């Protein structure tokens, strides 16, 4: 260096330039330059002057259509990705713009949504049925630092449309489910009429239900109470409804034997229903006088509060028999284990698969899954109910045959059978 003196400003400027150059080269290196000049030069770009090569190519083939099988109010937008939409490429995001068509003239385009790079479809769920819309898809390249946008370069596609959304009257993708349900109904109704006509129907033995009478009898002999726990779900659950039906039968037996049946519940609606059912059972066997309001009582809606209270009751009152019928969750084991330790006979039934192992471990008899739903037919032996069972079994037979045929067809690559059962849109 030949100059002996630097002014401080010149020095600073020179040093600054040097630093900038250093940073620049570091950035180029780290970004492995060739692929993405955009990223590399980013530091020098200001929002006002974005070089042309930063602009991505526009997405092509934008198409719009009314979304199928819905209640209206939405339009599907689809496009082919921009040629620049490659990994680490110039497209960071797509934006979807929409304008209303008023008297043939498009209004102002407004952004209605965005999609990530690589996406090819967007559903605009905010349309008004009957209006015409025009859509554009914009490919956006941008740089963000510290969560702030530094610059943005966007290219719009050709507009697509007009299109209008509308509601459909029938969901075609669900025809198969409809056919299935109808088929099942036909079976069930057919066998119900058969049964009404007096046809004898066989039903196999279910140990848990055979034991009900014996269990009630035992309580009578010992002069102790029977507890009936109808699960912790509310009346909007089929398992509870099934359980209430079984309660009716158990209450009849108990009333006949003059044994005190106690039903602590954890849902108010279940309490109301169970009270009616037990009362009805008492008058059905001609003992309305033995019914007592407090037989059915509410504890708390809380799952574990309910379990804690029943645990206490079981330990203190030592019932001879406990029924667990309905939907149970984690509290199943707390209840069943305490009941087991207190020496009661326990009969459980639930369609909650996670709880079945515990009932099997801690109870004397367990109704597994579907068996809970046949209990009312089994206990009452009413022909109509038995008929529906038979119909249910026919449904199962059809399913078995379908599985068999399906597996064969699929395995030998003859026909993609499984699509018949597809309900996913």
């Amino acid at each position, binding site marked *: 260096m030949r100059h002996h003196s630097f002014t401080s400003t010149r020095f600073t400027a020179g040093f600054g330039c040097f630093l900038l150059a250093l940073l620049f080269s570091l950035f180029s290196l780290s970004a492995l330059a060739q692929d993405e000049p955009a990223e590399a030069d980013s530091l020098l770009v200001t929002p006002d002057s974005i070089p042309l090569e930063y602009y991505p190519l526009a997405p092509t083939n934008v198409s719009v259509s009314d979304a199928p099988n819905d209640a209206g109010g939405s339009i599907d937008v689809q496009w082919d990705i921009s040629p620049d939409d490659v990994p680490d490429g110039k497209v960071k995001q797509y934006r979807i713009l929409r304008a209303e068509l008023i008297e043939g003239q498009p209004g102002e385009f407004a952004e209605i*949504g965005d999609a990530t790079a690589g996406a090819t479809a967007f559903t605009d*769920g905010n349309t008004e049925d009957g209006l015409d819309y025009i859509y554009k898809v914009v490919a956006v390249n941008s740089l963000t630092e*510290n*969560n702030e946008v530094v610059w943005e370069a966007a290219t719009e596609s050709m507009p697509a449309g007009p299109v209008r959304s509308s509601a459909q009257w029938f969901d075609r993708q669900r025809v198969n489910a409809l056919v299935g349900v109808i088929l099942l109904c036909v079976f069930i109704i057919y066998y119900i009429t058969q049964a009404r006509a007096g046809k004898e129907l066989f039903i196999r033995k279910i140990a848990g239900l055979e034991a009900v009478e014996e269990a009630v009898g035992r309580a009578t002999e010992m002069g102790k109470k029977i507890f009936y726990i109808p699960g912790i779900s509310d009346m909007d659950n089929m398992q509870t409804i099934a359980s209430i039906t079984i309660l009716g039968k158990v209450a009849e037996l108990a009333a006949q034997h003059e044994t005190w049946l106690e039903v602590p519940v954890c849902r108010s609606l279940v309490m109301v229903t169970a009270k009616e059912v037990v009362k009805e059972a008492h008058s059905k066997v001609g003992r309305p006088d033995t019914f007592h309001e407090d037989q059915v009582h509410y504890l708390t809606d809380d799952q574990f509060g309910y379990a804690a209270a029943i645990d206490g009751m079981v330990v203190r009152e030592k019932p001879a028999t406990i029924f667990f019928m309905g939907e149970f969750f984690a509290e199943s084991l707390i209840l069943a284990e305490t009941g087991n330790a207190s020496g009661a006979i326990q009969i459980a039934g639930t369609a909650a698969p996670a709880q079945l192992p515990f009932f099997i471990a801690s109870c004397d008899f367990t109704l597994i899954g579907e068996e809970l739903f046949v209990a009312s037919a089994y206990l009452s032996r009413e022909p109509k109910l038995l008929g529906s069972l038979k119909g249910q079994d026919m449904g199962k037979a059809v399913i078995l045959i379908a599985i068999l045929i399906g597996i064969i067809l699929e395995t030998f690559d003859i026909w993609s059978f499984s699509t018949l059962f597809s309900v996913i849109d």
Partner: protein
Amino acid sequence: MSTKAKEILVLALIFAFSLIFYIGKVLGWEAVRFSTTVSLIVILLVALSLLWILILTIRGRLVERRIVFLYVGIAVALPLFMTLSQRIAISPEVEAVYNTLEGLPEGSKVLVSFDYDPPSAPELQPMAEAFLYYCFEHDLKVIMMGLWPQGPMQANLAIEKVLSDEKIKSKNLKYGEDYVNLGFQAGYEFVIQRMGSDFRSMFPTDYRGTPYEQIPLVKNVKNFSNIDYCFNLSSGFPGTREWVQIAVDRFGVTLGAGNTAVQAPQMYPFMRAGQLVGLLGGMVGAAEFEFLTKWIGKGTKFMISQSFAHVIVIAFIIIGNVAFFRSKRKTGLKR
């Protein structure tokens, strides 16, 4: 000494013990930690006593269930103080969640539903933290909600914890732009169903009361079609099953889930069917996921206790069976 007196003595001991350590805590004592040697000695002692019970059983004396309770208590409590290293194997279900997340481009919108309450938090909270950590680290946008009243509170706890991490802090994430908590909505599975047509109708405001349309992150999110990935942390009803039935089957979202271990087995059919992409099952799933995301939290810490508890349960199953076969031999071979 009578039983009554013994009971009172034990009560007094428990109280004194609690009081001493509580005062210690207030005075700022160090945490109790067993060294590896002490840990091994404790393990050995427990194993020996189990062997003793086995011998007793073979001799024909059955232990009562309170002894079993005692052992479970020991097996769970002591390892919390231990320092042992362990290897964690990654199961394919957990890997699937991770891979899906990895496949999401930056800026993807992830909907996380917190469908659990404090009692299930030991299992699900570690998952929530690891999941959020991954999302924030990889610049995914997170929309949180809850079908359980306490879910959004758990979400806030997790967010608070993750945001306090140095790496995430430096990202300077903004509420409303990078993540948002829509809060709780009553209505069980019907909430999901309505969200299928319109998020806003279910969540007119976020949990802070900001109107939906004023939140930048979600103002353009109309329904599930604008969500790239859904994740559900569930401990019961409503939970993953409802998300599968409605969000996946009806509205076609991509769904991953974190479940309590009880629920997890029921989700396998959904997973094989492709209705569910990936599953974190219980605390073990949480530990595996923590390992993958490199967010080491309580899931990993509790793994020693977990292993221990399993071993104790298995030991007692074996003891029970020994007793069973012994009694069978005595009474002749009857079925």
